[in-house]
């Protein structure tokens, strides 16, 4: 049953990353667009993301709930020491979600729209960035073991764990990644001149993804970070990253041709591989502290709890997945997958 819980945690993070991510990315693309293109992006964002964006963001809640139920010790480390970035994350989520809905549902369209737009765009940039920073903090080796927290200063306990080069680079990486995801997604929804804009955008974002990931590795080597050792001790994760990286070649080729189905699938696989490599190389020590890795098995919730959450998740997914699938299908977001059986 523990495996089921791990699987759900992984899948939820993955879905949040690709669906929620693509959704954040739209805001970033909007922010980085010229005035003229911004309109196009905004219009498509409504059509595409409107019906599903609520659902996309529930994945984050699922991740959090799994964490606190099954891995309370991890959750404790994260919520105490990453208090500041997580609070920023919350501001971002609130501002973004409300601005998106407000600009859509405001009965009067006037100058307030530009405020909603600004808020939506900037928070779309900041939120995945701090999300990346928080994720980076887990492997940056600057978190401190809980039981020794009194021995550390305020900065050591609450700032350095996330304000360090690895974490910040992770923030840039995640922000670029979601922009890339979203550009790829939008390539599939447009044609002609509009499509060319997004192809260009996708390439730029992709370069930023590649560059920031190289920087993370480079810095990791230079600073002899533990996560680098983890990575190179693990053949499978190296293979996964190599496959992911080599997928870049066909992605660029098909991107240039505007092949929407193929690139979506390949990009989704690529993200899957990268996330898989991360999980594979660090598992079971997904958190690395100043005094070394902390295994996720340490202080894991008891068997009864794990079983109950596993059953709850399984039951929930029976209820949710078909509904979600239909939602995506109904609004034409599933063109990339093999056509589902006709009802």
């Amino acid at each position: 049953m523990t495996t089921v819980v791990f699987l759900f945690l992984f899948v939820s993070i993955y879905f949040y990353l690709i669906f929620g991510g693509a959704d954040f990315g739209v805001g970033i693309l909007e922010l980085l667009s010229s005035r003229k293109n911004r309109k196009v992006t905004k219009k498509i964002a409504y059509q595409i993301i409107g019906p599903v964006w609520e659902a996309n963001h529930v994945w984050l809640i699922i991740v959090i709930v799994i964490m606190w139920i099954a891995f309370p010790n991890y959750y404790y480390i994260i919520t105490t020491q990453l208090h500041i970035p997580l609070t920023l994350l919350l501001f971002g989520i609130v501002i973004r979600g409300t601005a998106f809905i407000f600009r859509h549902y405001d009965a009067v369209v006037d100058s307030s729209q530009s405020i909603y737009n600004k808020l939506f765009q900037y928070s779309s940039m900041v939120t995945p960035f701090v999300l990346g920073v928080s994720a980076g903090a887990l492997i940056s080796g600057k978190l401190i073991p809980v039981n020794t927290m009194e021995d550390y200063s305020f900065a050591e306990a609450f700032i350095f764990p996330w304000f360090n080069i690895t974490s910040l680079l992770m923030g840039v990486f995640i922000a670029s990644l979601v922009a890339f995801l979203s550009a790829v997604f939008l390539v599939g929804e447009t044609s002609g001149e509009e499509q060319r804009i997004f192809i260009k955008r996708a390439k730029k974002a992709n370069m930023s993804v590649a560059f920031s990931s190289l920087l993370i590795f480079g810095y990791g080597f230079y600073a002899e970070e533990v996560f680098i050792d983890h990575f190179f001790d693990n053949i499978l994760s190296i293979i996964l990253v190599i496959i992911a990286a080599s997928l870049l070649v066909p992605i660029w080729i098909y991107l240039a041709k505007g092949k929407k189905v193929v690139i979506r699938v390949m990009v989704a696989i690529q993200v899957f591989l990268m996330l898989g490599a991360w999980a594979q190389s660090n598992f079971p020590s997904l958190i690395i502290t100043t005094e070394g890795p902390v295994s996720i098995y340490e202080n894991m919730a008891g068997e009864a709890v794990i079983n109950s959450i596993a059953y709850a998740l399984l039951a929930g997914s029976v209820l949710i997945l078909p509904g979600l699938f239909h939602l995506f299908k109904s609004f034409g977001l599933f063109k990339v997958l093999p056509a589902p059986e006709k009802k």
Partner: protein
Amino acid sequence: MVNFPPMETLDAARLQMAVSMIFHIVFACIGMVMPFFMVVSHYKWLKTKDKAYLSLTKAWQKGVAIFFVTGAVSGTILSFELGLLWPKFMLHAGPIIGMPFSLEGAAFFVEAIALGFYLYGWKKIKNQWFHWFTGLIIGISGVASGILVVSANGWMNSPSGFEYINGEFLNIDPVKALFNEAWFSQALHMVLAAFTATGFAVAGIHAWQIYLRRNIAIHRKAFTIALSFGAVAALFQPLSGDISAKDIAVRQPVKLAALEAHYETGKGVPLYIGGIVNEEKKEVTHKIELPKMLSFLAFGDFDAEVKGLNDFPEEDLPPVAITHYAFQLMVGLGTLLALLAILFFVSRKKKSLLRKRGFWLVFALAAPLGFIAVEAGWIVTEVGRQPWIIYNIMRTKDSVTPMEGIEYSLFIFTFLYILLALVVSWLMSRQITVFNRQNNSR
């Protein structure tokens, strides 16, 4: 320069939690109940093909969308804040009360999916009854979420499903924790409260429009739908309140004593109405006494013994005055709303009432009362549980985060929430203006 005294982390964290809850509960109630109004109006449109119901449905749908989002994001904030502010609580309680939260996550997911179908499905979904049905799902899963979250809160009042041995939580049974002793009375009370508060608030807004003589016909339809829910719930609420009172009399006698400001243990004790609490002198002045009523209400026996605050250890006492005042406010408003509910049902028979402007003014003025009662009720249950975060197991002060400077996050969150509330109110007023204009021109 004014120098504020430094704020304790505990106080800041409690205030931030309180502010978050105060706002979330309003958004959540509306997001949970309004879909039902929308679905009824939608049903009437499909059945009668009266265009007024269609435009009402579409207007309410916008309200649902806006409140769902604010409810969802403020709920996301709360789910993080549990850990950010009370990490020690979550470290131990997280696994135990995970069951309601994971199920709530599922219900919330269903709600989000149904909302996607409903809002964007007007043209896309061919079968109009299926479309209508997705609207119903929004409401049902919303209520399910509400019940589950309240069950988790019930566990804090009535911890169960584990053994507490030498400071460790052992033999955890999540299902038992989910069905703790408080869950039913609390969930029933909250669901009825949500329907009452939202029903009266929505009806009140439409009553105000009728009072101003704007589009009377359509606003009357809206008023009737919303208040039918609100009035029925308001009439059942005293009953549910009685269940709750008898429940806490047994489970949390100190909370009962605090909300009644009852200091001296005795048999056949009176019920106080109003009164000013002096926590220093441990007495209540300027009150009205109903002899033997507290004994009766708490235990169904006029001569039953009710334990007073003086018989509990000092360090286990909640803030008495706040709890007592909040309780009085909640009960007073609840009673008032029940009376208004009766007035509403009378008006269904006696149509001449509807021609009186005063009738509409009364309901317009009553719009915020239900929500004030809801807030007061949460103050009773939360402040009344202090100093415990898990009743008789863990103290609130022992669970607070070691992080410093929580007052800054308190200030920013408070600012954000107030801003959000203002923007949402402003958006709603714009919706109503546009709604009136559109329905006039037709």
